[in-house]
């Protein structure tokens, strides 16, 4: 059964809830109440907004390039949505089992850039064009540190398949189909002599297996914020400067597609960050002697308990990441263009290259 059946409805539900949560989080941070009118605590506010957007007129400016303008939001959304195809969902239910996994993911979400450029250029509006150019420059720049950090995890895992990377980070490491018997060591170093194959928990997550991965994750997280065009990297849609950026001219449901794509991207990078660094669908609780915490809080692959527990862990970890993204958005001011570029090329990229080499050394020492 394909994960499409889960991810498509889940994504819609997520966007509805996340927009509401975003407004509530921002209200909390700014000491306001946020939406309170529609439904209990304003829970149905986004549903009302969506219904309104569905009924709105679809305006195509007379000066716009009509075909490009109409197709662009579809490309933006489908490119991001297709990235979900390779994500694992539980320990017995993964998406496409293709060997190129995460490599495919970062290439397909790059197509998003083409959609954004089409939207900006096709609108024939100055705000849209500035927004699109800023957005493209930002997304392609931050793709370099993002790609380098993903590469670090791939070097440690020796696989591009996200489900295999997930299995390597917990007690079910030897349940992965077709893999040789593997043993997990503290910090990935057999020389320390602490075997964790039966212990699991957070100790076998990638971020602990290679202690420097925390910094790698930091770079990944900063770059992923920029990839989503989210504050403090929201220059492409800086409301105070260029109205709405590349979607200034859009209205009605076509506009909500752009919005949908943005929130889908947030969720996608959160999933990816959790899978690559924070143990994927593995439980954070380790087995301690007779206290089999890891086994009690995760079911064997393929069983009902396995599906429920691992799905629960993966989704709740991803939601924590979303919360972190929202928290940052409402805490930090927007960067300036020159700061944006120097952060990417002068700090994150060199740091990512150095961490890449250190990961390589770590892996070779670990393998002996």
């Amino acid at each position, binding site marked *: 059964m394909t994960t499409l059946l889960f991810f498509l409805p889940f994504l819609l539900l997520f966007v509805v809830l996340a927009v509401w949560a975003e407004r509530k989080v921002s209200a909390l941070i700014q000491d306001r109440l946020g939406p309170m009118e529609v439904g209990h605590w304003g829970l149905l506010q986004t549903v009302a907004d969506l219904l309104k957007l569905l009924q709105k007129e679809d*305006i195509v400016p007379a000066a716009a390039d009509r075909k490009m303008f109409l197709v662009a939001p579809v490309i933006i959304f489908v490119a991001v949505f297709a990235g979900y195809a390779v994500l694992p969902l539980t320990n017995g239910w993964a998406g496409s089992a293709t*060997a190129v996994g995460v490599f495919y993911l970062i290439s397909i979400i790059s197509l998003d850039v083409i959609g954004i450029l089409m939207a900006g250029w096709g609108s024939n*509006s100055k705000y849209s064009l500035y927004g699109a150019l800023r957005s493209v420059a930002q997304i*392609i720049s931050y793709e*370099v540190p993002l790609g380098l950090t993903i590469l670090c995890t791939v070097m440690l895992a020796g696989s591009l398949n996200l489900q295999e990377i997930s299995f390597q980070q917990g007690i079910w490491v030897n349940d992965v189909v077709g893999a040789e018997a593997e043993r997990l060591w503290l910090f990935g170093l057999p020389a320390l002599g602490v075997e964790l194959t039966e212990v699991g928990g957070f100790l076998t997550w990638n971020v602990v297996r290679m202690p420097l991965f925390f910094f790698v994750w930091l770079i990944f997280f900063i770059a992923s914020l920029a990839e989503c065009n989210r504050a403090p990297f929201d220059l492409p849609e800086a409301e105070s400067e260029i109205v709405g950026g590349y979607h200034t001219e859009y209205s009605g449901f076509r506009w909500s597609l752009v919005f949908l794509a943005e929130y889908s991207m947030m969720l996608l990078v959160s999933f990816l960050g959790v899978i690559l660094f924070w143990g994927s669908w593995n439980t954070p609780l380790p087995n301690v002697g007779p206290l089999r915490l890891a086994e009690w809080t995760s079911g064997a692959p393929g069983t009902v308990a396995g599906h429920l527990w691992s799905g629960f862990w993966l989704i709740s970890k991803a939601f924590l990441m979303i919360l972190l993204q929202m928290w940052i958005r409402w805490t930090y001011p927007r960067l300036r263009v*020159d700061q944006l570029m*120097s952060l990417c090329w002068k700090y994150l990229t*060199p740091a990512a290259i150095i961490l890449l080499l250190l990961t390589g*050394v770590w892996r*070779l020492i670990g393998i002996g």
Partner: protein
Amino acid sequence: MLNPAVSSFGEILLYLIGGIVFVAGALLTAWIIRPSRPNVEKLATYESGEEPVGSAWGQFNVRFYIVALVFILFDVELVFLFPWATVFGKKALIDATDGMWGWFAFVEMTIFVAILGLGLAWAWAKGLLDWVKPEPVVKQQGSPVPPGLYEQINRTVAAAARAEQRKQKE
């Protein structure tokens, strides 16, 4: 639970089709229920309420091209590094070559990355990574009063204000 009838790339295709079908369905629904009453003002390009001047399809900063070029450099590097990353730490290959394989592949790739790092350093030194930063423009009014004089007055006034405050406290 994976359906064996669907190949791995077939599943990706399913996602693409699923995404397009969803978007098409939603847009069709919107098309059925939404009004369509265009008029000249509504179809005008948005420029904060002003009459739009000219077309947006003009020139833009050449730095966007430079960023794109540097990006291509590194993206091609990534394309080469991903396949390498999956095999350089393979235990079977390392065991078969007495540990030579891993370090050999690693050193090779270090040289490759170093050359690209050199490219980045060159672009950095050339100032290609510096975005245009508008310098604050100090307007010259052609006044005979030197700007330093104003600062001096400001300082005296501030000092007098501080002295006043101190006196009031006492």
